[in-house]
């Protein structure tokens, strides 16, 4: 048998490793900044760029795509080569993947604070960056499949299957959810509207968790855990069942993010049932991981790598039990919009993803640098500090979440809301927000300890850029699969992937206008498109990330209709590109905000919320009082909106729109004057007030048809 000698590429693994540490710290610090602003709004230094609404998406994007993303690439590039007994398919693609991904992250770190956002959660980046993500992802996929094809080991270890599922599904999700109509270089409108946009977004959002934060990390668990423990996985058969059950179930669970919303009931139930079924494979996987350590628990006591892994796997089990429970409609009616969700995702993010990433880094750095870890003691400190940090983060936020949920729903004996003022319910949990920031700080301190430890390890060792290995080429039996391989090998593979992506994009571009735009015929006749001034105001609402704290979806519960007004109907959102339902309430729902307060109240409230609502944790938006609205882009905006189906009359954007805008702005300025406020009609605040005063008012105009809904 002829044995081939080849070299594994360690350079790209190291590059991703360093990027993981750096972006991890950046993402966590952004999270801390956001957390502090929730009890001390002035921590934004009155700078719009670092205000909560803009920092929150930066935090989520940084930890998901920069920290976990780089960690995932690091682990995949290391393990895939060794599992396939082959160097990566293409060094060029490896480095294209690395630098492309870092550039995307830098672009995100610049555009999000500047307010360029699509507002769709975990998909906030604007369209040029979306295209870059698709290109880099294809490069990664080609590299992945290319390596698999030229592997020297016939059996594909279960981890490889998890990587494949990640590559394919993320491509489909990202492309489907990012269908948007550009209105300038850094502005776009979702092609979908209202309920449809919500459904696509949460189909994406849920599966981003499933296929970006879960499947790749499970693959990494199935590689690094046995390696670190030097024990085979408890049951290889179970790991195979884990994989196949997970990939077939996960993709249907998305609607559980929209329970009790205007989404059709059957879609909600579908999401709930599939979510519950997910408990089985998830717990099978968790137990498989933990049982791998049977007979090796003495090692767990000594080895920080295993310590991190044990808690990570436990956190995976906890959050995959909690997730399905939160998907039960009854539980969700209490938990949705509260901090319970925030606690849930942080068990997953800090526990599962964070700790497993740390474990991989502690495992890899000594091996890449051919030495031992500089300080095991420091790594142990890191372990305990991050565990303590997790506790201090999650427990207070669970308490906060349940408190909020219960207070919102509490009625007095005489049938009135016990806490009619939303502010009361938030003031109540502010101490929990403070404790959470302490927890987050501890976690970050631990990460710094790790960075120092890894740096010292690298200094002490000598980097091995390539590891030499030997293996016999894979036997390809002529009767089975020879044709398959010929098809898959080399260039045809590359073009297959490219054409699949092209077909997907092309297909969507064809299908979407055909199916969806016809749907935008309003089913509630009084619902009308936004006026030009309101469009600008809505875009400011998006820019400032208002939906990070304010939902626009009143659920059909008495506690909500009493507090906010008539529950939201699907037909009210037909012109909402994108939908702005939000998923969190740190402030009251705004779906029926229009007409509740006079214009001057909004003006003062935006200038300094504490003036109108003492104790409010909302930041000041005083820059909106001085900045001028972007009237020049109005034509492009209305044009793009018309293209996605909003029925503005032909030529409207070229003149009449500006006239309407000025007229409406003048009216608001006049109304502000009656409230003893003077401002110019071209200020941003005027547009925002116009939008806020419009919210939820359409159906009030025609009460007779108001109950018609659509689905």
């Amino acid at each position, binding site marked *: 048998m002829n044995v081939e000698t080849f070299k*594994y590429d360690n350079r790209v693994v190291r590059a991703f490793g360093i990027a993981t540490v750096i972006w991890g710290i950046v993402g966590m610090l952004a999270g801390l900044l956001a957390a502090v602003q929730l009890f001390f709004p002035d921590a934004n230094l009155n700078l719009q760029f670092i205000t909560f609404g803009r920092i929150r998406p930066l935090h989520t994007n940084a930890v998901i795509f920069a920290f976990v993303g780089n960690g995932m690439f690091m682990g995949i590039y290391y393990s895939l080569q*060794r*599992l396939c*007994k082959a160097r990566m398919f293409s060094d060029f693609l490896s480095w294209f993947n690395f630098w492309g991904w870092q550039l995307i992250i830098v672009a995100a770190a610049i555009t999000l604070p500047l307010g360029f956002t699509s507002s769709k959660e975990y998909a906030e980046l604007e369209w040029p960056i979306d295209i870059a993500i698709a290109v880099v992802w294809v490069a990664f996929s080609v590299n992945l499949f290319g390596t698999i094809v030229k592997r020297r*080991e016939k*059996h*594909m*270890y*279960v981890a490889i*299957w998890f990587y*494949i*599922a990640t590559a*394919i*599904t993320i491509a*489909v999700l990202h492309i*489907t959810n990012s269908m948007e109509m550009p209105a300038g270089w850094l502005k776009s409108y979702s092609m*979908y509207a209202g*309920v*449809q946009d919500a*459904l*696509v977004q949460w*189909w994406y959002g849920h599966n981003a968790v499933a296929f970006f934060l879960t499947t790749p990390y499970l693959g990494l668990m199935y*590689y690094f855990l*046995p*390696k670190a423990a*030097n*024990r*085979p*996985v408890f049951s*290889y*058969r179970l*790991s*195979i069942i884990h994989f*196949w059950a997970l*990939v*077939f179930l996960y*993709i*249907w669970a*998305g609607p559980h993010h929209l329970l009790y919303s205007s989404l*059709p009931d059957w*879609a909600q139930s579908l999401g709930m049932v599939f979510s519950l079924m997910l408990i089985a494979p998830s717990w099978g996987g968790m137990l498989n991981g933990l049982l791998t350590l049977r007979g090796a628990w003495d090692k767990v006591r000594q080895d920080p790598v295993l310590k991190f892994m044990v808690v990570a796997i436990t956190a995976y089990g906890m959050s995959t039990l909690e997730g399905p429970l939160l998907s039960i409609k009854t539980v969700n009616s209490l938990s949705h919009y509260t901090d319970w969700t925030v606690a849930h995702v942080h068990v997953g993010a800090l526990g599962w993803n964070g700790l497993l990433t740390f474990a991989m880094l502690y495992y890899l750095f000594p*091996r890449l640098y*051919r030495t*031992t870890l500089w300080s095991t003691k420091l790594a142990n400190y890191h372990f305990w500090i991050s565990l303590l940090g997790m506790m201090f983060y999650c427990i207070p936020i669970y308490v906060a979440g349940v408190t909020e949920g219960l207070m919102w729903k509490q009625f007095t004996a005489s049938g009135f809301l016990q806490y009619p003022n939303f502010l009361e319910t938030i003031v109540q949990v502010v101490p929990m927000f403070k404790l959470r920031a302490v927890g987050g700080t501890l976690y970050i301190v631990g990460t710094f300890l790790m960075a120092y430890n890894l740096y010292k390890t690298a200094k002490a060792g000598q980097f*091995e850029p390539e*590891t*030499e*290995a*030997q293996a016999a080429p894979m036997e390809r039996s002529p009767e*089975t*699969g020879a044709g*398959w391989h010929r098809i898959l090998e080399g260039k045809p593979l590359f073009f297959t992937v490219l054409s699949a992506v092209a077909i997907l994009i092309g297909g*969507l571009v064809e*299908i*979407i206008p055909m*199916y*969806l735009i016809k*749907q935008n015929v309003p089913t509630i006749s009084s619902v009308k498109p936004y006026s030009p001034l309101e469009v600008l105001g809505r875009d400011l609402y998006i820019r400032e990330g208002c939906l990070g704290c304010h939902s626009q979806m009143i659920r059909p519960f008495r506690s909500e209709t009493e507090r906010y007004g008539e529950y939201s109907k699907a037909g009210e959102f037909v012109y909402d590109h994108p939908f702005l339902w939000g998923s969190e309430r740190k402030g009251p729902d705004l779906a029926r905000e229009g007409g509740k307060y006079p214009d001057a109240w909004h003006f003062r409230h935006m200038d300094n919320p504490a003036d109108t609502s003492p104790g409010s944790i909302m930041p000041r938006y005083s820059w909106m009082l001085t900045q001028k609205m972007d009237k020049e882009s109005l034509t492009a905006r209305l044009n793009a909106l018309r293209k996605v189906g909003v029925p503005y009359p032909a030529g409207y954007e070229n003149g009449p729109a500006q006239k309407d805008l000025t007229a409406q702005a003048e009216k608001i300025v006049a109304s502000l004057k009656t409230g003893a406020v003077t401002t110019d009609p071209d200020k941003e605040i005027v547009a925002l007030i116009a939008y806020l005063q419009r919210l939820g008012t359409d159906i009030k105009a025609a009460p007779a048809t108001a109950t018609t809904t*659509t*689905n």
Partner: protein
Amino acid sequence: MNVIIILILASLAVALLFLAGFIWAVRSGQYEDTLTPSLRVLTEESKNSETNSKLK
């Protein structure tokens, strides 16, 4: 709610792709042996065995 057709189609396409992968895996004998793969992972290490033994 026509968008749900797109989502179901996209989800089904992915699911069918996985199904094809599953059928391929079973038919090509990937799962004939469910023990050695788990052991093989542990023994893949290459030349620098001194380093590796030091690390353990």
